[in-house]
Structures are given as structure tokens and as C-alpha cells.
């Protein structure tokens, strides 16, 4: 017998394996139930430590049996449908009309901040997440993480049961153990008791933590998140003497300078920022109203790709640029040595002039990756430019306790080292994986007597804890959270917990001695108290307040008013003097959260793993990203594994060459190299945290790159990055556009409408079409995941993506253009089915599985498809996707619950593609008909359109000349791609404009500044 407790690592693994092998209908109420199976118990106790190997043969056999069944399917003419049963309610709930979806407002917290959501629920199953238009941080849009969160809810690898030393246990046992601990803390006033959370904006949670701290005064509250806002906070403290939140009002700005601020894709407010930024950059925007964006950054970001002028510079050089600018804009800063950085001072002067000419309409944005001093300089610059109150405002902090995370974690680590920590409660965080390497956090954790972890996954940290408590998904639990502007959302669950999980509120309540108090009561009681205390109001009674708050998804009147602060220059000056701008040498390592799995928390989300990273188009991996010049110097090619060494720490990482990367830098993305993420996310990529230190979380000079001559297969969905002179993305500067507004049309060769052998079909009534404004598309991928969630698109895995079999119905093509390989222009082009009126795919389908509807849709009838793939071959846009194998998961029960019941789940051997969300069109048509009216403009919103933060995608009825889509189709910038093939696409684009500064452009013409 193996001693219980020592098998912590394989107990869970074995369980996972067993679950993975389950096929068909296997419901179990909890793992306890499963654990009750004597065979399983024996299994756990090690009598049969390896699963029976006969398994594979049997499955192969079954597959071959399946083949013969398929042959028997020849006689499918005579097969009968199996008898199905139908289960009505016993007591029908109010609201639910069987067959109709319901939408509930809630929110998802990410990095602590809430983004408002509307979640679609079919008969009690949440299936799709949309943004809440009423919510200030969403405005109806969502990002990839919110879109993909629905999959995490149904992830079969989610932690489902309490674990004690790796073995299955019960909540009751934990409550019991906790009660004993509480007695001890009451005696010691909680000495040595620590709570580690991530960023907290939840008023209820903060209140609970404070209650714990009141009850046990010696206890401490730590916060740590690997992608925190430390530099922003420290920068504000340096500039203003205290932390205030910075809010940009991008719609007011005419000239923007981003110092590594990826404000379109990073930060709690990025959706709103993207929307505001694009307001002055749409195709319809008057050329005189356009804004201009300069970006200095070390590694290409989505914001950089949108810039009118993008300068790849090493991260450490950005401080010098800030200094030089500050000096030119009248601040007392010593002149930095620009020459040694290879930066032309004239460039900075031109930039300063442009900013200066737009006082009050300009904006300097500083990214979290830059040190606090640059943030402070940014604040000083904005003040100097008169932007405060116009393009930038400040408010009180939204975070409940805005401490410095890295410092907090370091303190915790040191206390653990010193044996000062007796009990550690980790709520949600995964420090064993995400802590910087120099803190030896995992190692030091072992010195803590009692370690408890609450998390959605039994992850790396759970492995090191005595107790692992499964945490509810946000769609399963009551909670609350605040938007960046302070607006509160009360988060309501859409479904009862699928597994034996509890929320953080419920666990903290237990710390307060209220075990098993429901989250609903906790959250409601808090807000009742607030209501009664007059903190929130506007309603006559609490019941109304509560109902409205839940219904709207926001608590009105909770946004924070602006505060006025002023820059305390002396502190900055002192800091400036302390830190002379150094001339860096050697290769710099730059850390970034991964664009799709972030800090690693989404590692087990297949949608996000398979989502191509916006700029590299890599999937299922991270890489050491280097510039072409550096690659040439090192003599490495894509996929070659190099050793990155920083001091005595090193990792092996495959190289990916990315034009636009600053030459002397190598960028690594966090979030990979996990070893206990789950079946999907474990053992992918390399762990960049192993090179990260608490002192330099975002970049540091001095990394060695050594070749190993080994290769790692990196899989990208786009292997060719040039447009080959084909006019796919059509661009012009504003100046060129003013001179020749028809440039986009002239670049193409649209055949005249009568150039056809046959008479045209007329599409009267509705005639659907789409316009995508390439000026507004920031390439954020939200549409891709939204489409995946809406249309039941399967995940195929790295091996299949490698051979080009990804299934996304909408993809974002990314092209590099320009003469300079190191400083290319980057373009995004979402490509989905064009619904061509002369569709080449339709003609060649032998069964008529894809034909045109009388409303102009290129319909794809899966059940008629026999899978010749001819349509895909003949599609010039290559938007058709084929189920080469059985990609849809027909086995995992929880994943079935996510499926949109209005869209067929495709089986193997059939083609699929974008349908313009025909299920939504049909739903709208039926609704309209039932009300005896026509479908209104804007009533049919495709999934991609709905998710898009910048409203780049517009869909509607082309026959309605008042509709937005018809008006955009009439715009001079409207063009279709490959129209010379006479395909007559219904999806068209608005040509991309850029607004370069002529002065800077001239300098660039001269040579690289």
C-alpha cells in the first residue's frame, strides 16, 4: 500500500486519465461519488497503479467496427430514427420559454476589473457571452478572454472536488479543519496567517477580507498578479504623491504618443479605449478630423500596428525618448544621449512640435511595461501639454487596496523564508507558476505549515498546497466587481455550479466562521448594507435597487468623479537625477503576457490556444521573438531552439522571426510551459517566468542567446506575409486620399455589372451584405472567438493546424508591407465568407449543398455535403473549412452543454464556413414576421460584429438604402477583394487610411532615424 498523502501528484492525474477515458453518458454528481466506487478506491491506493493497456486495441477495433457501420450506412435508406425521449419540467420556472434563449447581465473580472457582459442562456445552459452595452468598460463589445470564458466554464479539466494532499476529500472535512484553525488564530490573533489574492475590486470580497483582518489583526493580505499595474501605480505615486487612476479620453485626442502603451489590447479599459480611439479614424471620419498615433515600442503590438508612425526601439530606450521629449516641451530634463540609441534628434523635435501644436488635444500614453519614471514623465508631459481634464482625467483608485503587487509578493516570500508564515490562503492566484524566478516562491511555500489553495484548476500551486478547493466559475457564482471608472456590477450566476465548487466569497465567509453561507446571501447582504448606509441609491427600496442592478448589469451612480491632482516635479526630478539615462548594450529580453493565454490562466482553453496570436499568427506555442536582422546575425531560422540565458537561469525557446521587432531585443511571452494546466494546456511552449525577476518584470538588458541547432515545430496559420503586389489591403495616406478619393476603386479591376453571359438574379426583399472598415479593425481576434462560440466551431489541435486544417470561419490575415524589413507597416484584414453572388464554390458542388439563397446568402447545408472539397479548392478566398476528421467533441458531456442549439454541430466529412450567422437572421425574420413588420436595420447582428470593440464590422440589408451597411457600400473607400474574378462578393472592405506626419515621413524617407 502506498501511503496516502505521498501520492499527491499522481492521484489527480490518474483520476483525470480515468475521466478522459470515459465515453458516452457519464454523469457523476461529484468526485466523491466517483471515489466511492471500490474499484476506483483500489486504483487510487495503488493496487493497480497502471491502467489496463488493452484499452487502445479495443478502441482501434471499435473504430474499424465503425467503418463497417459506415459501409452499412450504404443502406442508410432503411435506417430508422432511434426513439428519443423528451423530459418536460415538473414545475416550470417563470421566464423560461422552452426553445427561446434568455439573456442575463453579469460581468467577468479580468485583472481584477469587471467587464460587463450579457450572457445567452438556453434552457438554463449559458452558451454565449456578449458585451453589455450599458457597461462602461464594454460598451457592448468583448475581448477574446470574455468570449472564451464560456469554454472554461465547461472545461472537463476544471477542478471538481476538494483535494487534501492530492486525495479526494469533502468540503465538510475542510470546514472542519478550518474550524480548528480558527480556534488557533483566535488565540494568536491570526499571527502568521496570510491571504494571497489577485487584484481585488470586488467591494464584497474586499469587505470580507477586511473583516478577516479585523477578526485576526495579525493576519496579512497580499496581492499578486503577474501582469499587474505596479508601474502605473508607482508612476502615479511618483508624479502625484499618491495613486490616482488615469483615464484617457481618446475621442478628444488629435495627436497621441504611445510609449509602449498597448492601450488597444491591454488594460482593464482597452475595449473602451479602442472604441474611442477609432472614433476619429473611421472611413467616414472627415480627413481633417483624423487623429494621429505615434508608437515607440520594442515588440510589435496591436496598438503599434495601428500607428501612423511606429518606431521599434529597445524597451530601455523609451525612457530616453520620454526625457528628450520632456526637455523639448519645456521640462527641466537633462538631454539624453539620443545618438547612442540611434535616434535622430530631429525626429523627436518633429514629434514635440506636433504635440505642441495640439495642446489640449494631444495625449502621451505610457505602457505598464515601462518603469515608473516614464509613467511620471508621461503625467508631466500631459500636464505640460495642457491635456489634463481634456484628454486625460484622474480619479480615485478603483482597486480595493492598490498596493504594489511585486513588493507584496516579495514580502510574502521573505516572510515564508523567515518562517513567519504559518497558514497561507491563496485565493485564485497561481504563484507557484507565475512568481518571478528569483523569489523561489514554490520552494519557500514548503515552509508554511498550512497551505490552502482556492482555484478553478488543480494547478501548479494546488499541487503544493495541503488543501485544494475548487473554485466556481464566474458564471456559476454570485459576486461583484468594478469597472475601471468605478462602476459596480453585481455578477449573477447563469447556472448552478456544475461541480462541487465554491466562490471566493463563500470560502472567505468560512474564514469568518460562516461556512456554507451561500454566495447570494453574502453579496446581497453587503449591498443591502450599502444601500441602507446610503452608499448607493436612486431607488426607493432595496428590492428595486437589487433587481435593477441585476437587470442592467451596472449599479448606477457608482462611477468615480474626476479628481484634480498636479504633478510634483521635484520628486520626478530627483528620480531623474538618480537614474541617468543609460546607454544600454547587449540584447534585451522583453516579457509580455501572451495575447491569447495571458499570464497562463487561459492555458487550458482550447479556443484560446488555437487562436492565432494576432501578429505572429502562431498557435499552441510561445516563442522567442526576434527581428530579422538579429536572426540573420545569429544565423537562426524560424523554429530553431535557442537557449536564452540570464544569469544562472536559462530556458530553451524556439525562435520566431517577426518583422518590426526592435533589433536588439528578444521578446518572450508568459503563460506557457505550464505543467499542471490540464489536458489542453500542459506542456506547451516554454516557461518564460523562469527568466523573469521581481526587479525587472518587463525587460532587462543582458540576455545571452545560444544556438542549439535543434528544432521545435512552431505552427503558424499564415506562412506568407506579403501581399505579392495583390491589392488586398488597399491603403493611402490621408493626403493621397484627399487627392484621389477613388484610389481604392482604381486599384482594383471590377468588371462592369453587365459583364456576364447570363441574366442576373434579382435579390428583392432582404439582400444581406457586410462591410468591414479596415481603418477600425485593430486585429484583436474577438470576432474569431465570438464566431467560434456562436457557431460551434471545433478545436483541432496543433497537429492539424500544422497542416492547415484550422476551422475558424473568420480569420484575420496579417500582412507586412513597406521597404524596411525592420519597420514594416502592419495590416489586418478579417476574411470570412464573401457570399459572392457569382460564387465559384456553388457551381462546383455536385450535390447542391452550397447554393445561394434568395436573400443573397451563400448557404452551406452540412447535411447535404458529401465532402468532395471541390468548393474549398475553388474558393479564391479560401474561407471554407473541412472536417477532415471528427473534430467536434461528441463525447465530453460538459462541452456539449456549451453548444449553440441553433447551429448544427458538424460531423466529419463535411465542409463548413461562415453563414453570416444565418441562425440570427432567421430568428430576426421570424420575430419580425410575428410582429408583422420588416427586419429593422441593426436588428440582425452577426456574432463577429457584436463582439467587435471598434464596430469595424457592419452587417445589414443592402436593399434598404437607409441601412448603415448600404451607406458604407456607397462610400468611396468601399472595395471588394479579387473582384476581377467577377465573383461579386457581398463582403467588402473600406480601404485603410493612414495619417502620417509629413515632417516625420520626410525624415523617414531620408533613412532610418
Amino acid at each position: 500500500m502506498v501511503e496516502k498523502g505521498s501520492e499527491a501528484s499522481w492521484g489527480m492525474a490518474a483520476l483525470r486519465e480515468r475521466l478522459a477515458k470515459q465515453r458516452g453518458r457519464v454523469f457523476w454528481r461529484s468526485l466523491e461519488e466517483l471515489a466511492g466506487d471500490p474499484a476506483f478506491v483500489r486504483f487510487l491506493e495503488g493496487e493497480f497503479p497502471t491502467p489496463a493497456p488493452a484499452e487502445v486495441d479495443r478502441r482501434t477495433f471499435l473504430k474499424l467496427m465503425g467503418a463497417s457501420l459506415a459501409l452499412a450506412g450504404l443502406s442508410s435508406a432503411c435506417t430508422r430514427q432511434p426513439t428519443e425521449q423528451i423530459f418536460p419540467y415538473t414545475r416550470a420556472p417563470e421566464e423560461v420559454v422552452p426553445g427561446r434563449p434568455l439573456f442575463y447581465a453579469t460581468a467577468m473580472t479580468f485583472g481584477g476589473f469587471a467587464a460587463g457582459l450579457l450572457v445567452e442562456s438556453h434552457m438554463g445552459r449559458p452558451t454565449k457571452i456578449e458585451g453589455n452595452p450599458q457597461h462602461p468598460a464594454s460598451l457592448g463589445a468583448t475581448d477574446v478572454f470574455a468570449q472564451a470564458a464560456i469554454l472554461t466554464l465547461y472545461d472537463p479539466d476544471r477542478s471538481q472536488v476538494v483535494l487534501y494532499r492530492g486525495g479526494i476529500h469533502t468540503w465538510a472535512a475542510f470546514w472542519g479543519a478550518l474550524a480548528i484553525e480558527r480556534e488557533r488564530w483566535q488565540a494568536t490573533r491570526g499571527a502568521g496567517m496570510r491571504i494571497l489574492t489577485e487584484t481585488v475590486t470586488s467591494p464584497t470580497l474586499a469587505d470580507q477580507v477586511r473583516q478577516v483582518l479585523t477578526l485576526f489583526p495579525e493576519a496579512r493580505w497580499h496581492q499578486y498578479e503577474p501582469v499587474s499595474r505596479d508601474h502605473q501605480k508607482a508612476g502615479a505615486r511618483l508624479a502625484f504623491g499618491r495613486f490616482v487612476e488615469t483615464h484617457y479620453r481618446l475621442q478628444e485626442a488629435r495627436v497621441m504618443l504611445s510609449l509602449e502603451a498597448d492601450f488597444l489590447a491591454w488594460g482593464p479599459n482597452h475595449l473602451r479605449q479602442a472604441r474611442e480611439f477609432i472614433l476619429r479614424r473611421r472611413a467616414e471620419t472627415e480627413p481633417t478630423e483624423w487623429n494621429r498615433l505615434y508608437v515607440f515600442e520594442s515588440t510589435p503590438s496591436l496598438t503599434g500596428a495601428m500607428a501612423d508612425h511606429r518606431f521599434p526601439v529597445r524597451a530601455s530606450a523609451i525612457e530616453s525618448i520620454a526625457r528628450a521629449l520632456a526637455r523639448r516641451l519645456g521640462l527641466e530634463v537633462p538631454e539624453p544621449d539620443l545618438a547612442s540609441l540611434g535616434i535622430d534628434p530631429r525626429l523627436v523635435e518633429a514629434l514635440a512640435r506636433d504635440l505642441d501644436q495640439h495642446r489640449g488635444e494631444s495625449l502621451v500614453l505610457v505602457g505598464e511595461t515601462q518603469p515608473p519614471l516614464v509613467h511620471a514623465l508621461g503625467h508631466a508631459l500631459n500636464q505640460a501639454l495642457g491635456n489634463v481634464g481634456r484628454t486625460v482625467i484622474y480619479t480615485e483608485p478603483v482597486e480595493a487596496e492598490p498596493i504594489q503587487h511585486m513588493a507584496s509578493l516579495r514580502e510574502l516570500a521573505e516572510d515564508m523564508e523567515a518562517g513567519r508564515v504559518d497558514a497561507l490562503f491563496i485565493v485564485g492566484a497561481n504563484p507557484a507558476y507565475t512568481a518571478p524566478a528569483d523569489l523561489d516562491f514554490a520552494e519557500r511555500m514548503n515552509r508554511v505549515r498550512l497551505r490552502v489553495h482556492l482555484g478553478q484548476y488543480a494547478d501548479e500551486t494546488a499541487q503544493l498546497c495541503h488543501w485544494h478547493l475548487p473554485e466556481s466559475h464566474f458564471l456559476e457564482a454570485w459576486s461583484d466587481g468594478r469597472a475601471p471608472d468605478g462602476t459596480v456590477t453585481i455578477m449573477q450566476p447563469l447556472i448552478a455550479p456544475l461541480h462541487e465548487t465554491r466562490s471566493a466569497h463563500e470560502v472567505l465567509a468560512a474564514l469568518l466562521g460562516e461556512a456554507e453561507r451561500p454566495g447570494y446571501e453574502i453579496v446581497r447582504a453587503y449591498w443591502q448594507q450599502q444601500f441602507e448606509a446610503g452608499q448607493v441609491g436612486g431607488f426607493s427600496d432595496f428590492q428595486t435597487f437589487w433587481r435593477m442592478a441585476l437587470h442592467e448589469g451596472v449599479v448606477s451612480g457608482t462611477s468615480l468623479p474626476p479628481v484634480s491632482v498636479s504633478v510634483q516635479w521635484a520628486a520626478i526630478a530627483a528620480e531623474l537625477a538618480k537614474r541617468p539615462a543609460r546607454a544600454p548594450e547587449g540584447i534585451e529580453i522583453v516579457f509580455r503576457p501572451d495575447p491569447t493565454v495571458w499570464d497562463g490562466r487561459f492555458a487550458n482553453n482550447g479556443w484560446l490556444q488555437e487562436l492565432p496570436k494576432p501578429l505572429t499568427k502562431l498557435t499552441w506555442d510561445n516563442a522567442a521573438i526576434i527581428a530579422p536582422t538579429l536572426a540573420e546575425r545569429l544565423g537562426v531560422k524560424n523554429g530553431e531552439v535557442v537557449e536564452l540565458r540570464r544569469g544562472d537561469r536559462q530556458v530553451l525557446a524556439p525562435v520566431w522571426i517577426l518583422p518590426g521587432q526592435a533589433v536588439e531585443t528578444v521578446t518572450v511571452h508568459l503563460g506557457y510551459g505550464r505543467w499542471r494546466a490540464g489536458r489542453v494546456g500542459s506542456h506547451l511552449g516554454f516557461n518564460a517566468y523562469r527568466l523573469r525577476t521581481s526587479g525587472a518584470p518587463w525587460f532587462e538588458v543582458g540576455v545571452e542567446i545560444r544556438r542549439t541547432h535543434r528544432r521545435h515545430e512552431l505552427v503558424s496559420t499564415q506562412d506568407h506575409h506579403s501581399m505579392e503586389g495583390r491589392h488586398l489591403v488597399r491603403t493611402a495616406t490621408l493626403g493621397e486620399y484627399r487627392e484621389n478619393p477613388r484610389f481604392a476603386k482604381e486599384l482594383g479591376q471590377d468588371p462592369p455589372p453587365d459583364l456576364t453571359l447570363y441574366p442576373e438574379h434579382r435579390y428583392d426583399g432582404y439582400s444581406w451584405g457586410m462591410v468591414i472598415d479596415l481603418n477600425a479593425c485593430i486585429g484583436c481576434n474577438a470576432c474569431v472567438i465570438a464566431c467560434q462560440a456562436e457557431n460551434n466551431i471545433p478545436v483541432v489541435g496543433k497537429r492539424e493546424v500544422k497542416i492547415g486544417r484550422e476551422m475558424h470561419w473568420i480569420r484575420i490575415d496579417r500582412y507586412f508591407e513597406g521597404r524596411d524589413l525592420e519597420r514594416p507597416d502592419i495590416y489586418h484584414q478579417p476574411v470570412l465568407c464573401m457570399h459572392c453572388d457569382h460564387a465559384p464554390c456553388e457551381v462546383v458542388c455536385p450535390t447542391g449543398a452550397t447554393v445561394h439563397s434568395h436573400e443573397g446568402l451563400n448557404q452551406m447545408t452540412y447535411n447535404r455535403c458529401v465532402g468532395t472539397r471541390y468548393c474549398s479548392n475553388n474558393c479564391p478566398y479560401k474561407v471554407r473549412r473541412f472536417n477532415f476528421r471528427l473534430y467536434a467533441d461528441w463525447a465530453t458531456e460538459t462541452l456539449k452543454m456549451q453548444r449553440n442549439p441553433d447551429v448544427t454541430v458538424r460531423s466529419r466529412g463535411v465542409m463548413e464556413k461562415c453563414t453570416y450567422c444565418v441562425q440570427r437572421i432567421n430568428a430576426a425574420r421570424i420575430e419580425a414576421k410575428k410582429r408583422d413588420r420588416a427586419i429593422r436595420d441593426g436588428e440582425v447582428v452577426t456574432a463577429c460584429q457584436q463582439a467587435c470593440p471598434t464596430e469595424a464590422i457592419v452587417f445589414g440589408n443592402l436593399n434598404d438604402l437607409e441601412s448603415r451597411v448600404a451607406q458604407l457600400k456607397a462610400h468611396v473607400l468601399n472595395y471588394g477583394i479579387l473582384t476581377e474574378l467577377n465573383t461579386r462578393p457581398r463582403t467588402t472592405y473600406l480601404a485603410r487610411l493612414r495619417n502620417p506626419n509629413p515632417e516625420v515621413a520626410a525624415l523617414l524617407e531620408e533613412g532610418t532615424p
Partner: protein
Amino acid sequence: MAERTDIYGLLAEFNAPEKVLAAAQRAYAEGYRRMDAYTPFPVEGLAEALGFHRTRLPILVLLGGLFGGALGYALLYYAEVIDYPLIVGGKPFHSWPAFIPIVFETTIFFAALSAVLGMLALNGLPMPYHPVFNVPRFALASRDRFFLLIEARDPKFDREATRRFLEALGADGVWEVEP
């Protein structure tokens, strides 16, 4: 002119195609009509010598082809224009140019089928049993021997006279054919 019904006819064997041809011509001139010749390969003029002039096969094939073509077109027209018109690639329902290959193929298909089936039917095949097979030497009809058969049903048939006539034609042998 006694009718002897216990035999099917008389079979004369020759060793060269010219001989059987000459014999057939002579027999026809003599007034024999119900006769046939059997050769291991087609001998030019032999069928004509026996009084066979035209076969209706070509007209059958033409009809078969026309039927096939019409059927093909009718099927396509019905399916695409009448029964379930669908917009395919912006082309009209009645996309006749696209119908050509199929109509062509159905034409050929039915024409070829009528050629083969017509040939078999006109020849009365399959006929596994035939009286001539009763003659053991007849096996050589598929090797190197040429046979002339005069049926007993022929009005001019006389067992002895006909035998003599055939022998006079230079036959290597004359055999009675059991019915």
C-alpha cells in the same frame, strides 16, 4: 420432298473461307433459303450470299441515342427548372451549356446499350443450346473449320439430295444435325 423432322439439318464442313462462301452462293442459287454458315471469323460476303442484306441495328442505335439524350435533358430540365430551381453561382436555372456534358453522356450510354442489346436480341442470343452443337466436329467452327448448314425446314430440303448437293460442293464432310 419428304419432310424429315427427326433431323435439324445437314451440316457441311469446309476447310477454307472461299469454299464455304462459294458453297453458300451455290446453295442460294440452287434455291435453298433456310440455311446458315458458321465460320471462326467473319467472312466477307458470306451473310449476303445467304440472303442476308441489312441489319436494323443502326436505326436502333440512333433511336437509343436520341432517347438517351432526350431523357438526360428532360431529367436535368425537370430537376433544375421545374422541381427545385436553385441559384447556383449566379447562373440561371436553365443553364443549358452546363447540361451538355451530361446529355452527351446519356446519349452515348443509351446508344451503346442499344447497340449491344440490340445485337444480342437480333441475333437471338443468348442461346446456349443449339442443334448444331450436336455435331462433334462443330467445335472446330471456332477454330479453323467453316460450316454450311441447310435446315430441314427448307422447302427444298431432301435428306439425300441435299447431302449429295453438299458433298458435290467440295465439303470435307457432311453431317446430320440432331434437332
